[in-house]
């Protein structure tokens, strides 16, 4: 349980581990997973369940159709990017392993405030998004930034801020002359041009 124990110790010390070393395959850590000691951490839940649970922390309260959004614009967006998707899955497994180690439960099954606390205790809010970095950097890159990118480059997230066609989304050509944001038409993507 070396790596995860290290993370736990950091939390215990009240210091956020922005640069903690990623868990490596080891008998100690794997023992905590109850899995084959020769493999990387595995997800105890469906990837979509974990991402949706994470979105519940990252997205503002009251976002409707969140799971459908995550399925379409997070998982769907990277469906043909196998290397990247592997990175997402691996980072999700790492986060899940931390949750099981610290809280004794899969990440997706924890209360929202506990899910939030795990991220903050990992130092993810100030981590550098780095696909090659320590676990907090990889969680920031593959999970947090991915979910935030999908959300705030969509009309769903943009509308909450005041822009129905944010950059990254095709449709600004229809809206840039408007003086006000029209009401959403109600589709899951926010009601603006889907390009």
């Amino acid at each position, binding site marked *: 349980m070396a790596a995860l124990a290290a993370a736990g110790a950091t939390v215990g010390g009240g210091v956020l581990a922005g640069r903690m070393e990623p868990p490596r395959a080891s008998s100690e850590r794997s023992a905590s997973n109850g899995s084959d000691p020769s493999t990387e951490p595995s997800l105890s839940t469906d990837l979509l369940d974990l991402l949706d649970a994470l979105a519940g922390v990252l997205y503002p309260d009251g976002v409707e159709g969140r799971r459908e959004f995550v399925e379409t614009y997070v998982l769907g967006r990277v469906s043909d990017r196998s290397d990247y998707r592997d990175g997402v899955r691996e980072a999700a497994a790492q986060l899940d392993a931390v949750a099981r180690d610290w809280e004794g439960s899969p990440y997706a099954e924890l209360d929202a405030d506990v899910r939030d606390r795990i991220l903050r205790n990992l130092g993810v809010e100030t981590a550098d998004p780095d696909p090659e970095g320590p676990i907090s950097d990889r969680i920031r890159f593959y999970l947090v930034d991915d979910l935030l990118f999908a959300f*705030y480059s969509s009309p769903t997230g943009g509308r909450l801020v005041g822009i129905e066609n944010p*950059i*990254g989304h095709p449709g600004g050509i229809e*809206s840039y002359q408007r003086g006000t944001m029209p009401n959403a038409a109600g589709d899951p993507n926010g009601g603006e041009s889907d390009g």
Partner: protein
Amino acid sequence: MADDGGVGDGVDRTPASRADVCVVGSGPAGALVAHRLAEQGADVVVLEAGPRFDFANRREQQEEHIRPGMGDPWEMGGPRDDYTTAGRQYPLNAARVKGVGGSTLHWQGMVMRLHERDFEMETRYGVGADWPIDYEDLRPYYAEAERALGVAGAMDNPYAPPREEPFPLPAFPPSHSDSLFADACERLGIDMHSVPNARNSEPYDGRAACQGYGTCKPVCPSGAKYTAESHVRKAERAGARVVDHAPVQRLEHDDDDRVETAVYATPDGREHRQSARQFVIACGGVENARLLLLSASERYPEGLANSSGVVGRFFMDHLFAGAGGRLGEPTRQNHIGFNTSECHQFYDDSEPVEGLKLEFLNYAGPSPVMEALGADTWGDDLLEQLRDAYGTHVAIGALVEQLPDAENRVTLDPSERDDHGNPVPRVEWSLDGRTERAIEHANAIQHRILTELGAEVEWTVGPDATGPAYHQMGTTRMGSDPESSVVDADCRSHDLSNLWVLGSSTFPTGGAMNPTLTIAALSLRAADALEAAL
């Protein structure tokens, strides 16, 4: 199995056995001339240092741009692109691209003609240098370039030089943000007008209309923004051969002052020799000069085509001046990544004489997604932060002319080597007092407008904070006198009769207009001369 030079794609990268014209570089300058000459039946080979970027990946590249930590969408940087700099630090790799299409892959796509005065600054004002051609010489080629690039524009600019026909595409209408500026500018007697954009306002030339992804610079996923990939494709359809991953190391000449060979490398470490009857170098405002300097020979010890000694000298850029603030109402920024209104009213002023054009920005302030990705919180706290950050910004930018100065220059730096062991380019670049005063003049106009608008000015980019617009110009200047210039009015080297240098490196002065339309017009003009030389 084709000899692909170690790229692994099976594409033949060996030299063509016969070539009428060898073009080095596949940006707009090289692509346009390659297309025109191939259309006329010439055997054309284009050697491109960088890769061919698959259009199918543009959404992914857009994500790379928006998201921190994903790397440069155009893969710039590293030993291949190393450089050194002196004076005011010049960020050379910020906006140039090595790849099929060149820096138009990255550019924003603003395409204005230079004004008549830009061609005769020395005669009119005693500064800079006259061009060996005037506006009338270039005028038909400007029109041809506008058709080639597909320029969306309108005839509403009272300060534009004379033109013979409407733009090929209708202009993009003013933004809501522009409309907020309109009353203030009218009260001040400042005229706003449309912006010529190399961006499809409707489908054109096989490319889609703009959809408003908002990331024109550096990635347009819709294909509405012109890139020189368009004319590379046309050139290939006309029979030209385009070899990517083929950085030219040097040019070699014979005893009769004719270039014989372009020596290029492939990723497997081998060198290849492409011969041709005519050679065109079109690899950007820094690499054009660098390639000539790297091609020094016993006969040209200071660099090929450099008997004048001015290769690399008179490096210029346009300076950015800007100011912005916030209004008490929504300004609707960041829906699109390009501008729809400008002001060229002050361009031809004589006090100061430096050209100046104002841009009313449609992307003032942060975009929500980029702000979110840089934030250190999430959930409701993040949303609150984004609402505070977005929504009421306004800003005015400007390009300001920098007059040529021989001490601003590109040289070779033997203390650092690129991935092929060649000295890297060294960019020595500084601003003089008159340029700084011209920037301050732009700031003063910007402040007047913002104040009249009722905005609280929160930031100003003046002489201290200014940076380049990444329009690298002047290093192989054209002129009539071989003693003081590198190429003639047709962009042909004074020293070597079959060597042509295309691009903004040939500009004797740079005005304050984005240079690519002039690059394109000069290339089309040079294509006529090249055709006659074949």
